[in-house]
C-alpha cells in the first residue's frame, strides 16, 4: 500500500499525523471520562423537550444500531469471525419478549433480560457448532442459522406464524430512548474494559493467528464462544426492546437480513476491532440512510452498497482504523527499528533496515 506521503498534502498540513496521534492519546487516557460525558450528553435531549416524533425515533434507532454493530464487532472485528447471522439473536430476543409480555404477562424489563439470556443460551449451543468453521464457511453457516431461525418462527404457533405478533400497551418513546441508550453505554464500557484485559488480547490473538494462539495454550473455542455469547446477550436484549418499540414483530422484521448487512457495514465503515468505530459507523451510516430514505426514496440499499465499496477500497480499516494508521505511520521510523535499542545493537553494522515488512 502507499505510504500516503504524496496524496493528501492539504490534509497533512491541516491535520498532521502528530495531531491525530495526540487525539488518540487523549481518548485513550480519558476513555472513561469521555464515556461519562457521552452518557450525560445523551440523557439531555428528552430533558430539553425532545420526547416524541421523527427525530426521537431516529436517535433511538441510532442507539439500537450502535448496540448491534458493537456486538457484531466483538466477534466479527475483535475475534475475526464475520457473522452474517447476528440478527438471529435479535429475532430470538424480540420474540422472547413479545411472548413473555403478551402471552405470559411478565413485566417488560424482566422480559427483556429474559430475551438476552435466551439469546445467550441459543448462542452457546449454536456457537460450539459454527465457531469450529473459519472464514467463508463460518459466514455461510451463520447465514444459514439466521434463515433457519426465521423459518422456524414462521411455522410455530407460539410466534404467531407468518403474520407475527402485535404488541399494544407499550411504554412511551422516552423509555425506549433511555433503554437503548443505557444499553449502549453499558456495552461500550464493557467492551472497552475487556479490550484492555488479557481476555480481549486473546480474542485479538485469535483474529491474527488462531493456530499460534492454540500453540500458546489457549483453548480458542472457549474464548470464541464466550465472545459470541456476550454478543448474543446484547443483541438479544436489544431485540427484546425492539419488539415493543416497534409494537409489531413478524419473521421479516425480527430476522431482518438487510439489517444484518447494515450492521456489518456500520462496523466496517467505523473501524472494526475498536470500541468507537462501530458506534461512529452506526451513527454515521444510520444518518445517511435516514436522509436518503426521506430524500431519495428507494435508493437506500444502493447508497449502502456504495458506502461499503468506498470504505473497503479506500479505507479498509474504517474511519477509526485509518486514522489510527495515519497517526502511527511514522512511529516505526521515528523509533528506528533496531537502532532504537541502542546498546550493542547500535554497534552492529546493521544490514537490516528493510522496514517495509508489514506494508
Amino acid at each position: 500500500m502507499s505510504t500516503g506521503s504524496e496524496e493528501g498534502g492539504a490534509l497533512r498540513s491541516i491535520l498532521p499525523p502528530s495531531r491525530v496521534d495526540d487525539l488518540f492519546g487523549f481518548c485513550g487516557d480519558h476513555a472513561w471520562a469521555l464515556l461519562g460525558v457521552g452518557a450525560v450528553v445523551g440523557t439531555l435531549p428528552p430533558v430539553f423537550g425532545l420526547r416524541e416524533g421523527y427525530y426521537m425515533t431516529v436517535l433511538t434507532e441510532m442507539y439500537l444500531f450502535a448496540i448491534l454493530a458493537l456486538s457484531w464487532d466483538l466477534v466479527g472485528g475483535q475475534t475475526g469471525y464475520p457473522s452474517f447471522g447476528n440478527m438471529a439473536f435479535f429475532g430470538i430476543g424480540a420474540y422472547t419478549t413479545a411472548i413473555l409480555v403478551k402471552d405470559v404477562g411478565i413485566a417488560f424489563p424482566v422480559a427483556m433480560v429474559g430475551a438476552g439470556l435466551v439469546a445467550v443460551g441459543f448462542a452457546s449451543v449454536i456457537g460450539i457448532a459454527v465457531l469450529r468453521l473459519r472464514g467463508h464457511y463460518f459466514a455461510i453457516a451463520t447465514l444459514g442459522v439466521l434463515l433457519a431461525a426465521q423459518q422456524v418462527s414462521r411455522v410455530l404457533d407460539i410466534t404467531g406464524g407468518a403474520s407475527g405478533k402485535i404488541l399494544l400497551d407499550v411504554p412511551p418513546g422516552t423509555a425506549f430512548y433511555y433503554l437503548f441508550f443505557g444499553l449502549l453505554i453499558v456495552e461500550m464500557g464493557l467492551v472497552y474494559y475487556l479490550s484492555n484485559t488479557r481476555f480481549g488480547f486473546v480474542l485479538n490473538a485469535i483474529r491474527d493467528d488462531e493456530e499460534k494462539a492454540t500453540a500458546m495454550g489457549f483453548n480458542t473455542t472457549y474464548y470464541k464462544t464466550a465472545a459470541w455469547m456476550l454478543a448474543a446477550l446484547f443483541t438479544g436484549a436489544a431485540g427484546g426492546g425492539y419488539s415493543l418499540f416497534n409494537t409489531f414483530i413478524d419473521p421479516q422484521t425480527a430476522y431482518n437480513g438487510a439489517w444484518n448487512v447494515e450492521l456489518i457495514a456500520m462496523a466496517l465503515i467505523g473501524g472494526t476491532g475498536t470500541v468507537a468505530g462501530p458506534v461512529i459507523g452506526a451513527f454515521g451510516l444510520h444518518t445517511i440512510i435516514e436522509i436518503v430514505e426521506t430524500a431519495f426514496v428507494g435508493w437506500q440499499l444502493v447508497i449502502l452498497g456504495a458506502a461499503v465499496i468506498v470504505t473497503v477500497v479506500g479505507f479498509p480499516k474504517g474511519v477509526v482504523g485509518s486514522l489510527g494508521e495515519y497517526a502511527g505511520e511514522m512511529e516505526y521510523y521515528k523509533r528506528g527499528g533496531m537502532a532504537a535499542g541502542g546498546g550493542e545493537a547500535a554497534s552492529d553494522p546493521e544490514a537490516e533496515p528493510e522496514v517495509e515488512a508489514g506494508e
Partner: protein
Amino acid sequence: MSEAADADATSGVAEGASPTDEEAVLRTDGVTKRFGGLTAVDGVDIEVHSGEIVGLIGPNGAGKSTLFNCITGTLSADEGRVFLRGRDVTGRPEYEIARAGLGRMFQETRVFGEMSVRKNLLVAAQEGGAGVGSLLRRPDDRLLDRVDELLAYVDLGGLADVRAGRLSFGQQKLVEFAMELMAEPDLLLMDEPAGGINPSMLENLIEYIRRANEDEDATIFLIEHNMDFVMEIADRIYVLAHGERIADGTPAEIQNDQRVLDAYLGRE
C-alpha cells in the same frame, strides 16, 4: 562468541550432564507417525533434560517437523508416548500440552500482526493460567515491567507500541522469541530459528538464546539446518534420517559420524 565451536560444545555438555538424574523435561518413547504408506517418524526416542540446548538435524524430509508436531499435539502420533516432566501428554489437545509447559516457535515467524508488540507479549504470559479472574483483570505492573525487561533484552524496547506486523522479519523473530520467554515454558521448541535471517542478526540471536538458557534457565530443543549455528549452540544433537534416529551425541561426535555424513550426502 569467538570461542571455537567444539570448545563451546564441550563446556555445554558438562553443564547439561549434571541434572540427568532428575526427570527429563521431554521424553519421547518410540514415537511413530505414518502418512498413508510413508512412515514419516519411525520409533524415535528422545530425551531433553533441564537446562539443555538440544539440536535436531537431518536432511529435508527426515521427519523433524513431523516429530515436533507429534510432541506439540498438532498431529497425533500413531504409536509411542510423549512425556513432559514425566507426565504423559500423548493424545492431549494442543492447547493443553502448551499449558503443561511447552512453548513453540514456528518455522515461519508468527506474531499477532495487528496487535502492538507489547500486547503480543502480554498475551503470551502464562501466569495465572486461563483462570477467569486473571483474564478479566488488566495486566498488573509486574507483568508490564516484565514486558519492558524482555523487550529491552532483545533490543526492541523502543518498538513496544508499534504494530507487530510493521516490524521487519528479523525483528518479528525476536518478538516471537521474547513472547516465548514471557511464557516461561519448561521446554521451548524452535523450528529453524536461524532460517531467513541475516548473519549479523544471527549473531545476536545466538547470544539471546544462550543468555536465555543461562539467565532464564530456558531448556531448548531446536530444529536447524544452519550447521554452524547448531554446532555452536547445542549441547547435544539428535540426527534424523528417513524418520529414524540415526545418531546422537555432542556436536563434535556428530560432525565425525560416518552415518550422519552419509545421510547428508544421500548415501544409504
